[in-house]
């Protein structure tokens, strides 16, 4: 009430573009954590060190504060860039602060983590030979609040709702309507592209260069489109066009 609207803004909100990796801790045993994470780092998972990481605890009801503290220390010791702890009804709000972490609401990401397409889980069955190793194929609609992350390419065969988010280190293909967000090349791959059958997106992004719904070229709305990067700008073309 006392703040004048005319006041010169000393800040500005720049969209919701946090790209973080969620580290889902199934087990808080610091020894096995240390061993397994350092193993992953040796396997060229260097990205773990620069991407901001959100820690999500699988069984918060069983986690003691001491266990959490040692797990977090272990991760920090390995150079993992921890930024936040995923909020959880069973976790006291103070815990994140105590760990020196921010607190972030992941409820939705978590849903997906569990319902993640069988492509990655089915360890008893042989992996389908057709798909390239890191290609993730999603056959179900991706709903509002859900998030899908692919290490490589992401192929979606069903609609992607407003409020849903697709993230891929490689290309994204959507053989249906894209109403949510699609972020390709999230690890900086500027050659990544997004292909989609029907563009009605909230946001599209390649290697961090993004366009929000408002800025999508009208000529490509509700059309089959491919998107790529041309220098710093997103470029749009007919899906069936030239290239």
């Amino acid at each position, binding site marked *: 009430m006392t703040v004048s609207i005319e006041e010169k803004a000393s800040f500005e909100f720049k969209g919701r573009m946090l790209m973080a990796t969620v580290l889902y801790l199934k087990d808080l045993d610091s020894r096995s954590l240390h061993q397994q994470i350092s193993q992953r780092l040796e396997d060229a998972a260097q990205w773990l060190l620069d991407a901001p990481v959100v820690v999500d605890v699988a069984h918060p009801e069983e986690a003691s504060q001491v266990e959490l503290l040692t797990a977090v220390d272990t991760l920090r010791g390995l150079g993992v860039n921890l930024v936040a702890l995923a909020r959880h009804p069973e976790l006291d709000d103070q815990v994140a602060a105590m760990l020196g972490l921010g607190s972030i609401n992941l409820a939705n990401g978590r849903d997906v983590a569990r319902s993640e397409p069988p492509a990655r889980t089915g360890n008893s069955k042989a992996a389908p030979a057709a798909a390239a190793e890191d290609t993730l194929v999603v056959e179900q609609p991706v*709903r509002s609040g*859900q998030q899908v992350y692919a290490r490589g390419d992401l192929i979606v065969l069903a609609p992607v*709702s407003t*409020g849903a988010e697709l993230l891929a280190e490689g290309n994204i293909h959507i053989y249906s309507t894209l109403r949510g967000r699609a972020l390709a090349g999230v690890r900086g791959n500027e050659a990544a592209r997004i292909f989609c059958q029907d563009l009605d997106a909230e946001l599209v992004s390649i290697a961090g260069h993004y366009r929000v719904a408002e800025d999508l070229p009208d000529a490509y709305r509700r059309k089959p489109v491919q998107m790529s990067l041309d220098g710093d700008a997103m470029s749009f073309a007919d899906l069936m066009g030239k290239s």
Partner: protein
Amino acid sequence: MTKIVVVTSGKGGVGKTTTSAALATGLAMRGHKTTVIDFDVGLRNLDLIMGCERRVVYDLVNVINGDANLKQGLIKDKRVENLFILPASQTRDKDALSQEGVEKVLNGLRDMEMEYVICDSPAGIEKGALMAAYFADEAIVVTNPEVSSVRDSDRILGILSSKTRKAELGEGDIPARLLLTRYSPERVERGEMLSVEDVQEILAVDLLGVIPESQAVLNASNSGAPVILDLESDAGLAYADAVARFIGEERPHRFLTAAKKGLFGRLFGG
């Protein structure tokens, strides 16, 4: 085999309780032994719609806590054979709904050889809603033809695909169908509401039925008789169609186009 059905929506006030009451009553009218459970602990409502609020002794939480056994908690409907109501409590809080407790109640209903158990979910995605959905074999997602309701339904569909026991056991998504309620073809024509096609395209699920916006629903809830008992009304007929489709019959969708104006147009549907 007992089939457990959750009636859910995400957004509040879209017609879940109206639908749960109509569906349960419709199934019982067709001879299927059915129980409808109010999971809206703290806001009980279903007993009013079912017209049994003056016969409530025990409630779902009492049965879960063992203060009463299941038979004591169930209220037998006076109008329709084979129909039972398990009301919610107005006094307790949602935390009283434990997973084990709900499972115990559902197992009790299985032992009684219920054919259908209809779970009237509260709005939101909190505990009550999750408990109502957790054991479901099938879901009905109630949606109004407007953007925020569709968005919330979409969200609920996503949650259903990961937060049910079937999903946790790796048995995949439970079948979910859309019931579009409070549909007003006039307002759709004027562009004030989404059309059936729009909603179906966005949600990409099977359509169980379209229930028109109808004065009959208000009359029904005021008189404590589920609207499906009023087979002179458009909403009653639309619910009867939905029940028929629910058990596998084919019925064309009605009431999708604007009816003639005036009382008679309303009475005789579109």
